[in-house]
């Protein structure tokens, strides 16, 4: 039962996140194109205010030492610094984002909206992940 509630809570958070993303049209190739053409402030406002809200939340959590609902201290870890991987992988991810208009969350949302398109994206993403698994040790990090 506890496990079920745990799973359900993540699904609910996913539904919340996907609803906002879809209502804001951040899942749309058209909005992403406008962003990369610098022709619309919408996506920049969206990302900027999301980052600002998140940063402010993190500051409040730290400042007031806010605990989780399970009374544990909240730790925020940094991802390892691997500039070659961050930049190289970032550029490759960006190419995919620019081409398809989808990043990871919109990929899953489009799987629900239009499964034929979504399944192509997902199969591709899993193939790409597998390829990274093969090449990982040969790539600069």
């Amino acid at each position: 039962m506890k496990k079920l509630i745990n799973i359900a809570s993540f699904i609910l958070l996913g539904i919340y996140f996907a609803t906002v993303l879809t209502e804001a049209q951040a899942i749309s190739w058209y909005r992403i194109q406008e962003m990369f053409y610098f022709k619309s402030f919408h996506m920049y406002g969206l990302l900027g205010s999301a980052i600002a809200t998140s940063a402010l939340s993190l500051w409040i959590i730290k400042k007031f030492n806010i605990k989780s609902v399970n009374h544990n201290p909240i730790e925020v870890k940094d991802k390892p610094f691997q500039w070659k991987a961050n930049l190289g992988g970032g550029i490759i991810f960006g190419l995919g984002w620019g081409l398809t208009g989808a990043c990871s969350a919109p990929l899953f949302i489009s799987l629900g909206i239009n499964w034929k398109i979504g399944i192509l994206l997902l199969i591709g993403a899993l193939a790409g992940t597998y390829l990274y698994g093969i090449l990982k040790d040969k790539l600069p990090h």
Partner: protein
Amino acid sequence: MKNEPLAWYIAGPLIGLIVPALLILKEKQFGISSSYRFLLSGFTKKLGYFNYNREQDAWQFYFAIGLVLTGLFYNWNGYDLNALKTTVGSVKFYAPTSGFYDLSNWAIFLFGGVLIGFGSRYSNGCTAGHCIMGMSQFSLTSFIATIGFFIGGLFATYFIIPYLF
């Protein structure tokens, strides 16, 4: 269906709130693309990268189920991705007027998906984990990754997309 997007100054903060929500409710740092690794490790453990403690990423898979369910809900309500082609600026979309989301563009989606999967795993995060989570931590790692996202995105937009249609 309405074509006006929810205003950024409402949607943006609502997006940002996912970070404290996940931390306070679930003690998790926001990210999504580790779900690819989680999914694959369910099928293969031959490669070292997939032979790991996959339970740590299981939650991202559950989160992704919520994303898919939301998409299904919009689908049932007749949501059409191609209906979003109205532009707020003066962008010339290269996709045919019938819409970008067409199976004739299958190669773009499939190959783009490969880039999304490979790139997000190589850079150790995507727009969620780097752009939103990492940037709000003022992490140099995520700043570099985000610059990469934009270099790739701009290149695709100016130098690839125009030649695909």
